[in-house]
């Protein structure tokens, strides 16, 4: 039996209540959302916090997927399972559904949240790749009020984000742009395994030409990376196998994987290219209605 060190526990009743508790307790406190990253670390005593603030009751306020004319807003307490089952997301950003199908297992997906996933900032985290791909921004609230940061600003390093010790991530915002689609590819060693490499792609087309494209790669560097060079190479070009291959080469060249138990750096670099290619192919096929 793995047992954590002693800690105190309180359930927050509102976002402001949570922020108040955080301000009072400082760095000895932690929010617990789904608990699927935090609790295993505490049970292994890799992380010891004296004070846990449970924000699961905030699912009432922060568990939502709202479609507005120019953006989609996702509450930080939205569970993996809700993202997986959302028809709106499947229609607007199929990358979510692709990714959620291969994140962890149903047990983890029932509890784990998008807020927890992003705030954990694990370099192999899949939703970070999805949000980077979709050019999402994060709404962070603290005692001083609310601020909005881009994904690039959000990540400070592995397991480090822009969310301060007395702040809480409340919402993720994704801009809505016409004539686009998206896709996600992942290689794990087994179902429910973290990514060896995973890759999100979003593409927008007009008159047969790519107007914009974005890539988000996980597990090939200290944090999820967007690789702007890929976007540049794709803009104003007609989609083709050669173009996908070129994008893949850029992705492979531009990332910085390391050798570990999940794979060699060379293999991961290869995958970054291969998965970029595959995701691009699928996203374009989706725009053209050739694939669901």
């Amino acid at each position, binding site marked *: 039996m793995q047992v954590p060190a002693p800690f105190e526990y309180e359930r927050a009743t509102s976002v402001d209540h949570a922020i108040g508790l955080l301000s009072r307790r400082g760095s000895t406190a932690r929010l617990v959302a789904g608990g699927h990253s935090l609790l295993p670390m505490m049970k292994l005593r890799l992380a010891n916090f004296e004070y846990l603030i449970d924000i699961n009751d905030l699912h009432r306020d922060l568990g939502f997927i709202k479609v507005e004319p120019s953006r989609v807003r996702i509450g930080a307490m939205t569970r993996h399972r809700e993202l997986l089952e959302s028809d709106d997301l499947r229609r607007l950003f199929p990358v979510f559904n692709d990714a959620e199908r291969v994140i962890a297992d149903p047990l983890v997906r029932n509890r784990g949240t998008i807020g927890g996933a992003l705030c954990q900032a694990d370099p192999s985290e899949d939703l970070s790749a999805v949000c980077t791909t979709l050019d999402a921004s994060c709404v962070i609230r603290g005692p001083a009020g609310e601020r909005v940061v881009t994904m690039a600003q959000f990540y400070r390093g592995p397991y480090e984000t822009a969310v301060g010790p007395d702040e809480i991530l409340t919402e993720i915002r994704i801009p809505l742009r016409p004539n686009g689609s998206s896709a996600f590819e992942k290689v794990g060693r087994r*179902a429910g395994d973290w990514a060896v490499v995973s890759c999100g792609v979003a593409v927008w087309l007009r008159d047969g030409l790519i107007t914009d494209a974005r890539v988000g790669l996980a597990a090939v560097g200290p944090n999820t990376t967007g690789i702007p060079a890929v976007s540049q190479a794709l803009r104003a070009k007609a989609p083709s196998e050669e173009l996908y291959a070129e994008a893949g080469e850029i992705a492979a060249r531009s990332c910085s994987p390391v050798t570990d138990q999940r794979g060699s750096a060379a*293999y*991961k670099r*290869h995958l970054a290219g291969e998965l970029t290619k595959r995701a691009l192919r699928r996203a374009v096929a989706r725009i053209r209605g050739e694939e669901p």
Partner: protein
Amino acid sequence: MNTGENPPTQFVDNDLKPVGHGRMLRKEDARFIRGKGRFIDDIQLPGMLHLAILRAPIAHGRIVSVDVTLAEAHPKVKLVGTGAMLAEHGLAWMPTLANDVQPVLATDKIHFQWQEVAFVVADDRYAAQDALELIDVEYEQLPVVVNARTALEASAPVIRDDLAGKTDNRCFDWETGDKQATDAVFARAEVVVGQEMVYPRVHPAPLETCGAVANYDPIDGDLTLWSTTQAPHAHRTLYSMVAGLPEHKIRVISPDIGGGFGNKVPIYPGYLCTIVASMLTGAPVKWTEDRFENLTSTAFARDYVMHGEIAATKAGRILAIRTNVLADHGAFNGVAAPTKYPAGFFGVFTGSYDIQAAHCAMTAVYTNKAPGGVAYSCSFRVAEAVYLIERLVDCLADQLGMDPVELRLLNLLKPDQFPYTSMTGWIYDSGDYESTLREALKIADYAGLRREQAEKRASGELMGIGVSVFTEAVGAGPRKDMDILGLGMADGAQLCLYPTGTAVLRVSCQSQGQGHETTFAQIVAEEIGIPPADIKVVHGDTDLSPFGMGTYGSRSTPVSGAAAVLVARKVRDKAHLFAATMLEVTVADLEWRKGSFHVIGDPAKSLTIQQIAKWAYGTGQLPDGVEGGLEAHIHYHPENLTYPNGAYICVVDVDPGTAVVTVRRFIAVDDCGTRINPMIIEGQVHRGLTDGVGMALMEMITFDEDGNCLAASLMDYLLPTALEVPDWETGFTVTPSPHHPIGAKGIGECATVGSPPAIVNAVVDALKPYGLRHADMPLTPSRLWEAMNGNAQPPM
């Protein structure tokens, strides 16, 4: 011979209610599916304390000091134990199953990472864990040996300086077969193919981790120990020998066990710490290992580096096999195998083939890794042996440009060669290997698969077909050859029919999920003709069951199963005497039809076994020299092992872009002789095949160069899930064992043993276009991609 394909879905018509052998649902599942199983951690005793173990974070080093003052001062702590304290009681070291020794708690030196250093006993598990952090241990690090290949280098630090005169890391040397004869055949062979292959270190990883509850009664001097053991009686004897407690005062109970796979054969330091803690505190003490401890410190399996060579004619007749093996035994030799067999039954590496000569030379070494070397569903190293020969045969097929099935058909032993004495001295009892293989080929549509593969190859797709034809050796074992620490490998059984005609069978083997409560009831039902529902099987409690060596190495059915048959026949023979008396005829006048005795020629005059049971305890005049009651006892030792066999065909697809392997089909035809409950057999086979996918594709205990174990959680030590395995296609042939009373052979480990080479052969076959002849397990996407790029690496 019977052959057949099992139904595609598990169809069990329990209304048929077999009185004896046949498909029926498991009796024990009524409690398991309701969550009412009773496992070690479910045991609660009044006043029970909790034990936690402090483990060393380094792989090799000296203990400079251990300071427990702060831990002892913790308000909830009742006892802190150290190696020094155990040494005062003469308990700091204990024997391993292989006659080596291992510290219960380290006294002066750490030999592997996460070795046991101290324990804390506290009011609850949380406090025990908290107090561990208050123990201050100072270590002085020593250089480590993690790679077996460097263990014998002169510069390697000597790990076992506790052994008098030890100047290197050699654990043992062992050889089998005839070196001279084998070398002579090799010298004149037309074709010789060699291949080095690694069977990586893997872990049995049972769902339930190890644990114990010890309850020592200081007044009576009785010790009751509930523990996760696959061999309760043998453990009882060993505890008596190690701890000096009188054996009749020790009761070992192995309640419901959540999987063993060999992991629960050894005695672990945790069990002994728990016993000592209960004796010193006078209270019951519980220790439940966590997943991390189970994966890092309990018995591993495999870890063989094998260099194999096969000699043949150009036409494909296999002549001889020889191999050099480097065996990594970790820090202590904890191998679980009969004494005369330091390499288990690896000697069966000649496989299913008719050859002229064979030889194996093995060197075993100590390294700074956890001890073990247990039978992880491998029937004492048969898994390694089967992998070696089945990979070698494929390498030969590749060299000769022959179809691997054709090559095997040319060399398989023929039915009339049995009993067959192998070139390494094993006496295979029975088999019809060609029929078994042909059944698999039929289910698979092998020719069709090869056609499909040719089409796919032409379009750049990577499809592979792998075959393995294996022979197992299970059911240890014959009294003249086999013992563990001096205990012969025989099993007891006791059967008692009660006056109302129901029965209790007491067996010495013990179930970790195999379904013994069902199978053994069916075995007895078949012999005495009362329904399995009326037969209770008692096992896993040394006070309630006769002595025997436990459940591992697929020995339950071959040994305890035979004992159950024979004890039932003893009871039936006695009932026969009673029936003759009751019907006033002679014994010869009666014939047995399952469940009743009938007067020959006057079948209406008959008695059921239940009627006889009632009479046995009644007042009627007994036959001369016969006691009343209807019960019998037996202590059975088999005359030989049983040799189940099988033919497996695996179909894989490899994604050329990502090197991800998908096992698309798997056809398993097993021959385990007489089939007692086909549903349970299929369950065992499905389990073993899944294991095989795990080992072939993902499982491995890795270490970094400092000896840190990198497989310390199930996120790092990957086990396959339902999503990695196909719908198994199973079939069977039936070649009874000639020496088992009902012709049954073991089945528990066949699939684990037979499937990994089929999968690896399939993957290598898929990669023919890449010119690949071999790649080592585990074939993770990354390792396979490296192999596809000419950079195949042995696993580390």
